[in-house]
């Protein structure tokens, strides 16, 4: 399908802020910031009204307040973000199973198999945008193009609440005048370095010979950016069925890694990862935990098991062990962490569990052991209840009922990644 524009990128607009405005009508059409306060803290997201004043996610609260004196600070409603974003994903799944969710609020779709059912990609996009607006009350921007990279740029250009379709014969005309900062992987530093060489637009970058870009930015980055600027992006939409790993991560400002906090966050992440694995009848043998410290340095620890797992409690326990390994040897009082991620890879199909005879040493982490099988059966029951009564109907205690004292919602941000 190289010749047609069938890759769709859907991205909810100012997602957290939009949800807050949806939940509290008094906030609509007003500049608001989720997280932070006028005295400090970090702004996690800003409404379009606030963005118009220059307020951005990641900014400190007092800085935002200075830019926009009428700014209202609100606490986040984490569970609502999850519920509504999952609802949006369900709408996207109605037009194709080829959905690759790349974070809580954005996804790629491959529409090449859907056009004969629902019409042209442009028609499908309009349908999706209307349904998300009507059924969930949220604005969503959509970009459609021949490649993932271009579709994502198109959706950024479409914001707020718009639709941009880039037909194959319009690609260069569309891309060339756009700023290089829209290319995936161009951050402020790279942007400045390119600007120093007079490369300001995507067109400039595409016209610069690859070896020159490589000299400027290093081999790997240079090759990749040059290819993206020329819209050379062979990546396909990868659905969880074909995915090689499933992961979830949670960022929470800077926190000291108290056992309660670590357990609660990991329990939540493990539940997300494990339940998505089970929904696809998958299980994985390798568990990986990433801990990011406040200085942006990350440590990764992983373990490979003898049998694949998809059990929430087992994944939680393993993730906890790995996290403490990653934290081990550090001065705990000193080491603040800003992000935890849990990933399961080495995936295989698991429609059934080979039970084991009760022979010591009993290990609840082996899915067929007496305890392991009980956990497996419990998860299946929990999944069934959640399918019928909703995700919040039943769950594991630390994940389902977070002690807000340890993790205020406003510090939580969840990004998901399935690749």
């Amino acid at each position, binding site marked *: 399908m190289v010749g047609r524009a069938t890759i769709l990128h859907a991205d909810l607009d100012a997602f957290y802020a939009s949800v807050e405005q949806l939940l509290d009508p008094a906030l609509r059409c007003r500049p608001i910031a989720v997280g932070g306060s006028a005295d400090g803290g970090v702004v996690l997201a800003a409404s379009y009204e606030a963005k118009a004043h220059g307020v951005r996610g990641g900014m400190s609260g007092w800085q935002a307040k200075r830019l926009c004196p009428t700014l209202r600070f609100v606490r986040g409603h984490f569970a609502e973000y999850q519920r509504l974003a999952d609802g949006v994903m369900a709408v996207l799944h109605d037009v194709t199973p080829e959905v690759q969710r790349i974070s809580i609020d954005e996804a790629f779709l491959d529409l090449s198999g859907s056009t004969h059912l629902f019409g042209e990609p442009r028609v499908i996009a309009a349908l999706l945008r209307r349904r998300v607006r009507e059924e969930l009350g949220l604005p969503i921007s959509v970009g459609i193009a021949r490649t993932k990279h271009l579709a994502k740029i198109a959706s950024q250009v479409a914001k707020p609440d718009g639709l941009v379709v880039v037909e194959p014969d319009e690609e260069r005309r569309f891309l060339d005048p756009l700023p290089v900062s829209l290319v995936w992987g161009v951050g402020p530093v790279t942007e400045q370095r390119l600007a120093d060489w007079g490369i300001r637009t995507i067109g400039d970058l595409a016209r610069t010979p690859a070896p020159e870009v490589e000299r400027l930015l290093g081999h790997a980055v240079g090759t990749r950016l040059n290819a993206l600027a020329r819209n050379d992006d062979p990546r396909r939409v990868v659905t969880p069925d074909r995915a090689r790993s499933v992961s979830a991560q949670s960022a929470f400002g800077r926190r000291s890694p108290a056992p309660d906090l670590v357990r609660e966050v990991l329990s939540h992440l493990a539940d997300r990862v494990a339940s998505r694995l089970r929904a696809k*009848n998958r299980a994985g043998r390798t568990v990986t935990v990433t801990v990011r410290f406040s200085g942006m340095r990350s440590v990764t620890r992983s373990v490979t098991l*003898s049998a694949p797992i998809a059990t929430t409690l087992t994944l939680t326990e393993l993730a906890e062990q790995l996290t403490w390994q990653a934290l081990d040897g550090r001065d705990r009082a000193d080491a603040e962490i800003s992000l935890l991620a849990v990933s399961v890879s080495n995936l*295989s*199909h*698991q*429609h*059934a*569990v*080979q*039970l*084991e*005879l*009760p*022979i*010591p040493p009993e290990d609840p982490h082996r899915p*067929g052991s007496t305890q392991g*099988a009980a956990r*497996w*059966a419990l998860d*299946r029951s929990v999944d069934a209840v959640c399918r019928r009564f909703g995700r919040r109907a039943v769950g594991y205690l630390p994940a389902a009922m977070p002690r807000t004292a340890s993790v205020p919602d406003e510090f939580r941000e969840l990004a998901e990644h399935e690749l």
Partner: protein
Amino acid sequence: MTVKFRVERDTLADAVTWVARALPNRPPVPVLAGLLIEADDNGTLHLSGFDYEVSAKVEVNAEVSDPGTALVSGRLLAEICRSLPGKPVDVVTDGTKVALTCGASRFTLLTMPVDEYPTLPAMPENTGMVAGDVLTEAVGQVTVAASRDETLPILTGVRLEIEGDTLTLMATDRYRLAMRTLTWRPSSPGASSIALVRARTLAEVAKALGSADEVSLALSTGGATELIGFTANGRRTTSLLVDGDYPKVRALFPESLLTHAVVETQSLIEAVRRVALVAERNTPVRLTFTDGLITLEAGQGEDAQASEAVESSLVGDELSIAFNPQYLLDGLGALSLPFTRLSFTQATKPAVITGQASADAEDDDDTYRYLIMPVRLAG
């Protein structure tokens, strides 16, 4: 000091091949790659190999002109012997070399220092005798269930329990448990001991010695080194026992089995094999037992599927249960009787496979029992 003897090609090849199997693949010390040749003045050739855990020693007849001892690379000697023509083999040592002549072929091998070769463990005192064919069958029946996972060495072993004239062998890998009892001739009527032997070693022993009428079993436990030894037909092998407490597995057999089905063993084996063709790795076959019929199914959803029905009789309630097809075939293949009895309590509890002589026999044969854990399905 030279050593000189002549031996028949087939005799030498058989003996060397067997001893070479005991040699380590990666010798911890170089001399253990060697095969020790001792020629005595009674016209007997002793060949031995050792890897600190298992020793093998064989005696064959030879025309010994000059008795003595030599140590040569066992692998090389085994390969040479296998490819020699069918003629007498002459072996002569000459300083640090061994010359081997057979017909028009002539080989020269380097010797290794005999005095650095460790002493083979002494054979413990005979504990009893068991018929070769019975031993071979029993070992085959239990080693299928032994674990191959070296991270838990205990389960890679076969547990032997001696109680008077009853010898019991059992093995489990957690997914199934095989247990065979047989009658043997203990050297003392009150014999009572236990041993844990590596399944792989036991299988090798059965292959090498099982053709003998009787195999002598020798056990030394409680001493400094715990050893088991087997002797038959001029061949003897010893092995260290596996360390550790074997789990109490006898109690895992259910006390009362409410439901059982009887089916012709061969028909069931063939049906499982056919249906399992569509079962991908780690996916089960489902067996549904109704009166007069076992329905087998494998595959699900959008994958390939297969089903087949086999005639059978059922006592008790109808039941549906799923197994790993290989584990099921291992158990069925180990039966020595034409009919199979499958006994159950429920679909998530272990099932017992036994043999029986005829379709309507009152009792099954409880000298061999294979306990198999089912697979629990998601649906």
